[in-house]
């Protein structure tokens, strides 16, 4: 059997260490608010936040956390950090109601 490549072992250990140091910070779910996104009602009366927050520069695990979606995808947002609404306007998540979302009705995709 050929010997183990020790230089590759060192690189592997470096990769593990890098993964450990770059692991996302866990934000306690109690400090986060919950929102729905990707969907809006067909009559336009209810709009749910339709952005890919990661592509907007928000960090999953720090600014927001995806929650196991049911009918609509939801996320928990850090209330102390700003987010962006459908019109591109920034808002702070404390401006958004924490509860009382109306998830009933017919939903359609934004795109």
């Amino acid at each position, binding site marked *: 059997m050929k010997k183990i490549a020790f230089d590759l072992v060192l690189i592997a250990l470096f990769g593990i260490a890098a993964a*450990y140091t770059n692991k996302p910070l866990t934000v306690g779910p109690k400090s986060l608010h919950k929102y729905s996104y990707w969907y809006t009602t067909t009559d336009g009366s209810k709009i749910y936040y339709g952005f890919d927050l990661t592509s907007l520069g928000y960090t999953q695990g720090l600014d927001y956390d995806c929650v196991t979606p049911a009918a609509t995808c939801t996320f928990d947002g850090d209330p102390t950090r700003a987010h962006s609404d459908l019109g591109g306007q920034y808002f702070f998540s404390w401006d958004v109601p924490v509860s009382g979302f109306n998830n009933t009705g017919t939903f359609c995709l934004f795109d």
Partner: protein
Amino acid sequence: MTRKVKGSPFALLKHCVEALLVLLFMYTGFSKLFALEDFTGTLYNQPIPHVFVPLLTWIFPCLEVLTAGCLLFGRTRRIGLYSSLALMILFTAYIGAILLHFFHKTPCSCGGIFRTLTWPQHFAINLGLIMLTCLALFQGRKPQGPPSKTISSPINSAT
């Protein structure tokens, strides 16, 4: 029949590709394992059936770590390279499908530093890695012709 090219600049390049793949798969695999809940959330937001998510949560990081592990040993290195190629092709095909709007929504990307990349950047990097892996797999061996037959003539046999 094949012959390995040893001591050439190519051998160095091949070793560098193997090192790159070890770093990549150890990093991405352990990034997922260190934040398994986070990765599960990411998978739930991908356009894949949710019933597969609990299984895929473990399969992907384990495959990545196993692939990197195979690259460490001489005997399993070639298996590791093939496994790397298969994983990279799988991920790249998935990204290609996202870029072609094959799915109804564009999901957020996966863990580690790769979450900061856009999908086209991710796609370009993956294509580059596929090419490098192919180079390491297939350019290191030169085809050899069939073994030359020794013609024994009656004269030679007699002498």
